[in-house]
């Protein structure tokens, strides 16, 4: 408990230190703050007793905060949230170090807000009280908006406001649903309580028609964050405009809040709704894969390309989650972590060459293997991880997500029936081909080919810090841990898979029954309406 609060609060303490302290030492204070946070969390994970069961640890409620509303400061982890929190805490110091040369003005504010961002993300993952989760979830928006709006590109204001309003609007649905379930709990028991486990128990007892709407409202909230197909348009803009470290945290940690929300709230709380809307969400996810992949293909802006690829990748992750069987769920959770590593690393790589050339346009810059061989090696490695090459981390999640979708059939013998089946996997599998296409095209332009550099060197002189041609030691030190993690998880996924398995099973506990129910009434109206909707979406 103490360690968790250390990892959540220490960055905030450090943020105050940054605000009070001198400008020169701001970056090092920030680095130390995130490092302590990571250290505390690692220490916690090292002694984590619940790696092999679905327990929360510590399994106690925290101090009360607003007693008559039943809101408490209770934090704790199960393996999934611990892994995601570790991922965020791991990326934080790397991002801080990655910003040393990129951020040269208003550094104190930048590092201060960054620390607050890190702290609120960990809070969201650690929270075991729904309102506490909501606070962490929502508060990430404030520092992120400021980071984009102050340190971003030319359209930074629009991007920041759009991101804030869009995701905020989505979260309102989520908050309303949480309050509704809390109210239902009060009706049943007589007192407010926002403990997530209690809410889950309450929500699963609701009639299935109510669960349908509960699920739909959760989905609206989390789908914006993931982002799922028609609700994704804030993401490319935000990524495009955000400073490098902002993009990394946005892609690696903040988007994971969306998928984590599905894992923690939408799916276990409203299993009946999940079963009803399973194919609808899956179709949206598949559209996201194909649609975003095709858009990636014609992007010339390297960062936008990676941003759209995030939409496609998280589409696959959602598909795995909504296969509603352990294979898909394992794959999806694994994919959350892996996408954080490989896409975060890609954003860092692109940021590094952006700092040197001040353009992300692949038509202008290219063939950098000759100029920056070390950078090129890292870039190739992370691209391959993102493509899903076996032996690297991306493959495990991707393969399991697709496999889970494939075997999510009504007559499957896995004990977990589903309604997706092979055809969904075939269409989603096209994403594998497209991923190879657009990422290799990116590599072909950026890394390989004859050297192309922008002619005007004026951009270079404006940079306050003169960077060497190839990566400097600091940058290598940022990318190396990520590369090691990518390879290690690709070669040794077993411990992590074993750790996820019980949590995945707990999440799916109610699903076999509910999916059976859904299929037995498949001639009823919900299916017909869903099919109608999917046809419309396809028509777009």
């Amino acid at each position, binding site marked *: 408990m103490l360690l968790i609060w250390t990892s959540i609060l220490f960055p905030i303490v450090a943020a105050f230190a940054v605000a009070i302290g001198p400008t020169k030492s701001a970056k090092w204070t920030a680095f130390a703050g995130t490092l302590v946070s990571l250290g505390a969390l690692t220490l916690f994970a090292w002694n984590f007793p619940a790696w092999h069961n679905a327990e929360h640890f510590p399994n106690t409620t925290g101090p009360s905060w607003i007693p008559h509303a039943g809101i408490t400061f209770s934090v704790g982890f199960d393996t999934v949230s611990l892994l995601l929190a570790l991922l965020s805490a791991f990326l934080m110091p790397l991002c801080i170090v990655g910003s040393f040369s990129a951020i040269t003005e208003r550094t104190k504010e930048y590092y201060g807000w960054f620390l607050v961002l890190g702290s609120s993300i960990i809070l969201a993952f650690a929270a075991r009280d729904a309102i506490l989760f909501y606070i962490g979830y929502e508060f990430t928006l404030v520092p992120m908006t400021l980071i984009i709006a102050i340190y971003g590109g030319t359209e930074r204001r629009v991007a920041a406001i759009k991101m804030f309003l869009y995701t905020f609007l989505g979260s309102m649905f989520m908050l309303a649903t949480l309050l509704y379930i809390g109210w239902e709990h009060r009706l049943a028991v007589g007192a407010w309580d926002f403990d997530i486990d209690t809410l889950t128990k309450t929500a699963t007892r609701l009639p299935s028609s109510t669960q349908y709407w509960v699920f739909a409202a959760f989905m609206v909230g989390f789908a914006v964050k993931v982002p799922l197909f028609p609700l994704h*348009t804030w993401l490319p803009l935000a990524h495009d405009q955000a400073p490098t470290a902002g993009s990394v945290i946005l892609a690696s940690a903040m988007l994971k809040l969306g998928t984590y929300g599905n894992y923690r709230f939408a799916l276990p709380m409203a299993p009946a709704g999940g079963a009803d809307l399973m194919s609808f969400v899956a179709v949206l996810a598949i559209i996201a894969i194909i649609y975003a992949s095709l*858009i990636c293909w014609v*992007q010339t802006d390297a960062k936008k390309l990676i941003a759209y690829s995030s939409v496609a990748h998280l589409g696959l992750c959602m598909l795995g989650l909504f296969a509603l069987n352990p294979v898909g769920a394992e794959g999806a959770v694994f994919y959350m972590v892996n996408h954080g590593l490989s896409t975060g690393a890609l954003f860092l790589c692109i940021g590094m060459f952006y700092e040197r050339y001040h353009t992300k346009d692949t038509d202008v810059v290219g063939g950098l293997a000759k100029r920056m061989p*070390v950078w090129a090696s890292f870039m190739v490695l992370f691209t391959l991880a993102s493509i899903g090459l076996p*032996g690297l981390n991306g493959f495990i999640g991707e393969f399991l997500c697709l496999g889970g979708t494939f075997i999510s059939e009504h007559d499957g*013998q*896995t004990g977990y029936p589903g309604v997706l089946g*092979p055809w969904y996997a075939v269409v989603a599998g096209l994403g594998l081909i497209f991923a190879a296409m657009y990422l290799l095209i990116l590599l072909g332009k950026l890394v390989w080919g004859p050297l192309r550099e922008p002619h005007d060197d004026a951009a270079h002189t404006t940079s306050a810090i003169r960077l060497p041609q190839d990566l400097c030691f600091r940058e290598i030190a940022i990318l190396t841990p990520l590369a090691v993690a990518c390879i290690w998880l690709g070669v040794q*996924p077993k411990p992590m898979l074993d750790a996820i398995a019980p949590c995945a099973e707990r999440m799916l506990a109610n699903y076999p029954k509910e999916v059976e129910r859904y299929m037995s009434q498949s001639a009823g109206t919900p299916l017909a309406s869903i099919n109608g909707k999917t046809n419309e979406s396809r028509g777009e």
Partner: protein
Amino acid sequence: MVGSWRIMTQLTSIPQAIIAPELSWVGLALLLPLLAAVACALCCALRVKGKAAAIITILALAASFGIIVKAYFAYTGPVQVPIFQWLSFQWGTGQFQSFTANCGMYIDTLTLYWMLFVTGLGTLISIYASEYMEGDCGAGYSRFFFGICIFLFSMSALVLGDNLIMLYLGWEGVGLASYLLIGYDYARPAAVAAGKKAFIMNRIGDLGLALGIFMLWANYGTLQYSELFAAMNKGGQTSVDWELSVIPFLLMLGAFGKSAQIPLFTWLPDAMEGPTPVSALIHAATMVTAGVYLIARMYPFFELHPEALATVAWIGGLTALLAATIGMAQYDIKRVFAYSTISQLGYMFLGLGVGTTFGACYHTLTHAFFKALLFLTAGAIMHGFAGQLDLRRLSGLRHLPGWRIVSWTMLVGCLWLSAFPYTAAFFSKDAILLKALTSVRADFRFLGWLGLFTAALTAYYTFRVWFRVCAGPLHFEPGAEGHHEPHDTHDKHDTHGKPAPALAAKSTHAFHPHAPRWAINGVLLILALGALVVGIPGYNETFAHKDNWAQQMIAGSSAMEGAGLAEDHGAEVSEAHPTVLGMDAHTGLTVVGCTASIGGILVAWYFHLRSRKSADQLRAALLRRWWIRWVPICMENKWYVDEIYHACFRLPMWLGAQILSFGDRHFLDGVMVDGLAKLPVAVGKIFKPLYGGALQGYAATMAGGIALVVAWLSWVWLRGFN
């Protein structure tokens, strides 16, 4: 030692593998290339100037080969060797409630057969490359050997793996190695594009393979070979369930991608942009045979649908013919050999399809040697003549001192490729054609005749190269130095023998081709010898009537069902004895095979050595007649397959992507999202006059608002009283 083979002529089921952790030392064959890859990467990072990377690679691969040889002699039966747990978890105790794909090895005779030539040729070609690539010392030398090591590791994982996910790992890994090595010379856009194309086309096949793997899991609940084969042995495979019968088709899509068959063959000729040792090792001898390995390994599953093997046969037969026709009209030596590779792979698939895994695998073995040999000779020529590979600009090299070994080993390769009587390839090709021609199915017999016709074409285009390049009067022009080969610079309507003016202008006097030294020559000689040696099983069978080593290797594995032992050995007693042209099948095939091969060579001799002008005249005559003109044009332009793919798939998709990209920014974001955001703004505009800026205005609005609220409240309250 050989006596310890369990010869299974009476086999009715796939032998059950036993778990043998004590054999984990075979895993060194996987580990050593990987360690060597790490070492090469370090050399690369430390910018080592010398040949350290090559030495490390050669040593590691030779050790790996040694391990496989040791495993071969220690072999007693199929074994499964667990190494470590990789991708596995479970959520129940039932058969379908776990997912297991560990890092482990499945060693049977098919594995060893493949590993022997993969590691053997890998070692030899690295020795060759250590000299061939020395111009890049300090630049890309270590990177090249890094790629080779990654390739050998992946290929070993593909062949040795004990489950389909390991196979998939190797499958994609060799694709990666191929991508990195084709694009080795990354400053040339053509090489980069070729690498990309290879990877993406392979990915299409890989999707088929992945789906096939899922389907296997969905139906059998396991991906371990031993368990799959055990399930197969139990029977029950004659299901009409579409989920089962689609498995072979999905798997064969993967095989077609990797082995460059119709419809996914266009990447292989482009892959010749890579350095020649890569073409020899990856794109001729080993990687492209992975498809053959997959089908041979999973052969029992190809009987799940009655037409699955027929599809393989048809695709193979047609690919062989199509590639041969294209190969006839190419001027670039490496391209000719690339198309011949596709064509020979077509034969292998034909063999698999008509039901002789032995023929297919034996042809794989012989092909690996002679095609590696041919590519390496082409590489030596390219190396010596500054990248010149146009067969119109090289002639009579056998008269040039220092080039005799290259010329004569090339002749060996050409003889083998054209299946000259009683060479190794003659036996292996015969095994395939014999099975096809004696099949009970008419369409297989047709494919057999098609294969024979293709054999004649093969002999023709093979010797077209040799007669032009090595025979005739001495004459040569250097290529564009620095570039590996001037692809696509040929004038399409240029004629044989007449050099293009641009290149003719280049002085030939100052150029001295540097002859290959010991490493290249030595490897060429060893390979020529190897090509001879791999014929021994064929000689043994044909002349000594002894057991055929290759056949036993195949028959002892999961490919046994198609090994065709009974038919080929004790066929004399059968009353419905198959015949070819009214003769005994063996004799008849020998006669027609010899005719096709020698006929093709004679035609090549006439057109390309005796009177080279007549080839041009023939071509001109064909082009003059409108009704036949399309034949040479289409052949020279590769039947426009690339263009058709571009027009049918790439272009519409690209257009669609542009539309989507535009629509995403301007419709979905611009109209839908921003439009929704305008709604509150519009509502706000209605009340705008109330907020003009004057302080009193705000106060009045506020007071009015409060008054309204109070009025409403009191109205509600009073109404409640009534």
